[in-house]
């Protein structure tokens, strides 16, 4: 297990190095000068020169790469050109919206998907299964921003249980903050849970056909006991893969939902900094997202090994 973990950790480190190189070179070494690109066509030469030295463009590429990576390792992501504030601060504000939102949505989606998938699998071909499959078909097909608008319409405008948008901030207390994230989390979770429930169902159905499930029944386990004790864990591998992918998506891909609910999240930050051609912010946020996604992949790999002893013993 230790060897497996070390190997995965090594692969995590290598992926990060490669990712940082790719991001750095794509953004910095593209033809043309980042400073003149950022300032647009009508910029004055002296403004460009000032930005060049501010960006550190007057030293070699290798030195710039090393100082960029070195800075990030110390938590220094540089200073936003547009906002004139440290990028670390900007990310810091927004990650405390995006990360909890992604985790909240993922928890909801798992809580909905697991029972729905298990229920559908255990009643394969019966009305219960068909109902779940129909609902998830709808959930996969309907875009999350439509759910978002419906939720606003029902729970914010008609019932007035939640506010229609905005984030109150964690300083108002965890319940209040969670409350303002609830509608966006639901809107994000619904399509994800539909996908996850379908994956769960089909993974379980595959496992139900396995010989060891028949063995379990021959030992005297009821259908339900066999499903829960022998089926579920075996079905987890494909489900974990999807959960890992969904987390990555929820973290960066929530941009439309962030717009609908006026949430100051990472998706909006990227969108705004791309519009403003603020390469320093783009570069840093992308690197941070890549880091989080690779980290999640690493955690999913560890989860595989926790579930499956065959992976643990493989050297």
């Amino acid at each position, binding site marked *: 297990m230790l060897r497996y973990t070390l190997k995965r950790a090594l692969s995590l480190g290598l992926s990060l190095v490669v990712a940082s190189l790719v991001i750095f070179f794509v953004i910095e070494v593209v033809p043309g000068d980042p400073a003149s690109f950022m300032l647009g066509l009508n910029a004055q030469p002296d403004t460009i020169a000032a930005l060049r030295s501010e960006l550190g463009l007057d030293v070699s590429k290798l030195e710039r790469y090393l100082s960029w990576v070195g800075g990030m390792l110390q938590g220094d992501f540089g200073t936003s050109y547009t906002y004139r504030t440290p990028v670390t601060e900007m990310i810091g504000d927004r990650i405390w919206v995006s990360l909890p939102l992604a985790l909240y949505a993922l928890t909801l989606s798992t809580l909905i998907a697991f029972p729905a998938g298990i229920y559908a699998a255990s009643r394969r071909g019966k009305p219960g299964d068909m109902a779940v499959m129909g609902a998830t078909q709808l959930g996969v097909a309907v875009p999350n921003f439509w759910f978002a608008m419906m939720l606003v319409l029902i729970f914010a405008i008609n019932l007035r249980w939640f506010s229609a948008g905005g984030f109150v901030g964690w300083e108002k207390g965890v319940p209040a903050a969670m409350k303002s994230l609830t509608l966006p989390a639901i809107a994000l979770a619904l399509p994800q849970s539909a996908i996850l429930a379908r994956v769960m169902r089909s993974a379980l159905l595959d496992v139900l056909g396995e*010989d060891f499930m*028949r*063995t*379990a*029944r*021959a*030992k005297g*386990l009821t259908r339900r006991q066999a499903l829960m004790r022998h089926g579920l864990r075996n079905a987890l591998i494909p489900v974990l893969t999807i959960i890992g992918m969904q987390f990555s998506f929820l973290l960066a891909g929530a941009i439309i939902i962030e717009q609908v609910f006026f949430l100051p999240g990472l998706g909006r930050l990227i969108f705004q900094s791309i519009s403003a051609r603020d390469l320093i912010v783009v570069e840093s946020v992308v690197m941070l997202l890549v880091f989080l996604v690779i980290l999640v992949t690493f955690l999913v790999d560890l989860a595989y090994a926790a579930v499956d*002893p065959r992976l643990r013993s493989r050297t």
Partner: protein
Amino acid sequence: MTLLSVQNLSLSIGPLSILKEVTFSIAPGEIVAVTGESGSGKSMTALAVMQLLPESARTSGHIMLRDEELTAQSEKSLCAMRGNCIGMVFQEPMTALNPLHTIGQQVAETIRMHAVMPKAEAEAQAAAMLTRVGLPQDRFPLSRYPHELSGGQRQRVVIAMAIARRPRLLIADEPTTALDVTTQAKILDLLKDLVEEFDMGLLMITHDLAVVADMADRIVVMRKGEVVEQGDTKHLLAHMQHPYTKALFAASQHQVDLPNAEDGHAAILSVQNAVRDYALPRTKLFAPRSFHRAVKGISFDIHQGERVGLVGESGCGKSTLTRAILGLEPLQDGSITAFGTAVAPDMPAQARIKTQVVFQDPYSSFNPRHKVGRILTEPFHLVDTPPTGVALTQVIGEVLTDVGLQPSDAQKYIHEFSGGQRQRIAIARALITKPELIIFDEAVSALDVSIRAQILDLIAGLSRRHNLAYLFISHDLSVVRSVTDRVLVMQNGEIVEQGETETVFTTPMHPYTQTLINAAPVLPDLAALSDKTETAHAPA
């Protein structure tokens, strides 16, 4: 006193009638073998006794365990009975165990399902049971996972699970079909001992008549869901009544009429000191790779028109050698020459024409979306100017006729054929380029005995008509004995013995060959048996 009594059991799934009025019984300590070909309903009979039938199955008749009617039990009391009063062992030990649970957990689970006791005590009982089935704790602790065990060892775990609660009835569904002969002999011995020790009844489902004759006290012969004949083993073997029983036993002892081998032909395939290594995963990041030597310097020749057998247990390197001979994988040392050309993955396509192959599984070795005609003509991509139009149709018609099918079958899809017919198509595909050497890789192992006998006859006939040489690879010694002139015995990547088939089988020299031949169950000589009983029964 009867332990299990099945009376007039009929079973249907939808409009399909699976079992018809099946009746038999088992006494404590008795081994009853239910035998028959695939589709005879023998496995369904076993599942019916377990009451683990598909939900859509409808049954009538009675299944009595002692004085309890199983068909009338609630699901709850059935669960209490399964694993407790009736244990079951399955065919495929590689998949019958949950890969994510330790063997200790899985055996202890049977115990704790049916008795309230502390975990430690259940584990102690599990350990004792695993030791009893031949997995002592010092070498096979409870913490082992299934993937760390061999097929035979896994089957022992499955048996330990099934007998952990000392059930009165044990059902074994093809318990040794997936195992090597030497392992099979050990598992059969274990089952016999357990039946005696626990005074269990054993319902054994098997298609292998040699195993049946060797193990069973009584035999039940089934065909298409019906019991055609049953009785005491010795008596039934000596006095078979039903034509199907006679045909079944005749087929499994089938001797093909092989044309005499002619000496003095040139070698068409020559394997010289062939070595095949597989790279093992690195143990340390920068450690040099270590290799597993699957084929360790093998040499042999096959001459024109010669029929050579290759026997050995799983993992001995048979398949690796086959792939090398087909030029699918490179050798690490030595050489293989076929028809004067060096065999290697990069050999010219034309050089492959004269060597063709037939694989084991008639169900998965064809593309289901292609018609038979297209499947058959696939080897023609090796030919520079393949026949077209009428000539092509004629060639297809010829090979189909050659293997006993109709030229019109070329227009059908593969799912329209039975297993035996598919294997004929596989042979036709191998024949279409008019090869001189065919490799049969376990080509009859998946077939029922009567179909197998027909395919073996076909192979013998083709060998006569086309002066074919072949390499017949099989784990089934009796089949190899009947269709080959010369045999190679392989163990751990080496050929430990080779010689004329009859000589090797009657006077094996190498201890491994002796072990193999002794372990293989053989049908007793039925004619002699019937004479003997007749004299015994003759009036004094």
